[in-house]
């Protein structure tokens, strides 16, 4: 079980860094609340509740992008990634740990964002919460993976949204479906399918992203 010990140690490192420096989470929180306020004014008066549900997903996606863009910045600035690749641990552990850390940040941001959404717009059902949890897994798994690639390119922060948004379209479909459809079961199943498929793909190919 050294694999999970490695993952735990790496994830703890990221959480500890965030606790000390606090540069990602406050930004995400402020961003998501500001987005809700912008949405309030961009929705015409008397528009339906369904439109607001859709916007919740846009807010989640962009907040996640904000966090993911920061995910590998410490690694790049301090050249930690080179050290991690040399360390005698499986390379996919780096991805898994980073995904868990970003998932924790995104989850923490949503713990505030969802009640604020309920306060500003309308109440949120259990299906929406389940959808958000499943979508978060997919967003963090794929987003962390792409973040590791984007950070090694010349374009850097510019590239991550371009790489990520086409891959996030199925997540939005599943999430919006889970929050607005009468029977959310199949949308949740679809999100779970997405998580499993892309999670496995990321896990299997991450090694090639950090090594040559």
């Amino acid at each position, binding site marked *: 079980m050294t694999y999970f010990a490695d993952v735990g140690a790496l994830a703890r490192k990221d959480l500890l860094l965030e606790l000390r420096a606090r540069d990602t989470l406050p930004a995400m929180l402020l961003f998501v609340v500001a987005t809700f306020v912008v949405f309030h004014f961009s929705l015409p008066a008397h528009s339906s509740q369904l439109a607001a549900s859709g916007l919740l997903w846009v807010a989640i996606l962009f907040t996640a992008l904000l966090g993911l863009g920061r995910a590998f910045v410490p690694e790049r600035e301090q050249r930690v990634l080179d050290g991690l690749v040399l360390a005698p641990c499986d390379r996919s552990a780096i991805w898994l740990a980073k995904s868990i850390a970003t998932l924790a940040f995104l989850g923490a941001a949503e713990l505030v964002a969802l009640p604020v959404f309920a306060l500003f717009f309308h109440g949120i059902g259990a299906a929406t919460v389940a959808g958000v949890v499943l979508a978060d897994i997919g967003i963090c798994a794929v987003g962390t993976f792409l973040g590791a690639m984007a950070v090694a390119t010349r374009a850097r922060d510019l590239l991550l949204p371009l790489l990520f948004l086409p891959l996030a379209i199925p997540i939005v*479909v599943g999430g919006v479906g889970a929050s607005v459809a009468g029977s959310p079961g199949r949308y949740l199943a679809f999100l779970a399918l997405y998580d499993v498929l*892309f999670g496995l793909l990321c896990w299997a190919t991450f090694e090639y992203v950090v090594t040559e």
Partner: protein
Amino acid sequence: MRVVSRLSRVPLPALAVASLVLMTVALTLVFYVAPNDADQGFSQRIFYFHVSIAFTAYACFAAGAWKALRHLWKRDPGADLESYVAVHQGVIFGTLVLLTGSIWAKISWGHWWLWGEDELVLFLVLFLFYCAYFMLRFSVDPGPQRANFSAVYALFGVVLIPVSFLAIRIAKSFVHPEVFTLHGPNFGGWILVTYCVAQAALLLLAYTLYRVELTGKRLDARIRELRFA
């Protein structure tokens, strides 16, 4: 696989002539032999090329992913370039799918764009995805890292195709309650023959273009090497 490896030994001029002949036959069949569709009349004739081009684009993306897998798995030299060229062909054919599909939508439903057309929406997603592939590829310096990044992203593409297709299917129930049911043509007789010939012609055309581009790219690389030699 053996067929493909044998195909790669066919000289390029022969391929070009064969695709030209096949394309002429296909066009003749489409415009002069295939009967008018009972439902859609003359406009149904777009179908022969539209669907064939779409299938060809999928084949190109699949070939790109296959070459990407070969690169990651067996470290085939040249697999990276082949994967890139195949994806490039796929994007060209994907753009043609969007254009012809949009024209078909205009004839059949009077709008240039329809969110209810699964295949069009899927190709839009794929178009965005593979444009990002080019952005990724051109913002990394040539070398093993670029080859790895491109290969991994191309593999994401083949997983994205079925997942997106499923997503678009299930999204219809809340994005678009009214479902356009396109009465599929009754396959059979000349319609089937025309479709098969058009499909073969486009696949061969795509393969020919792939080989032309690959030859050019390899030549380019060799000249660059000579220059620094």
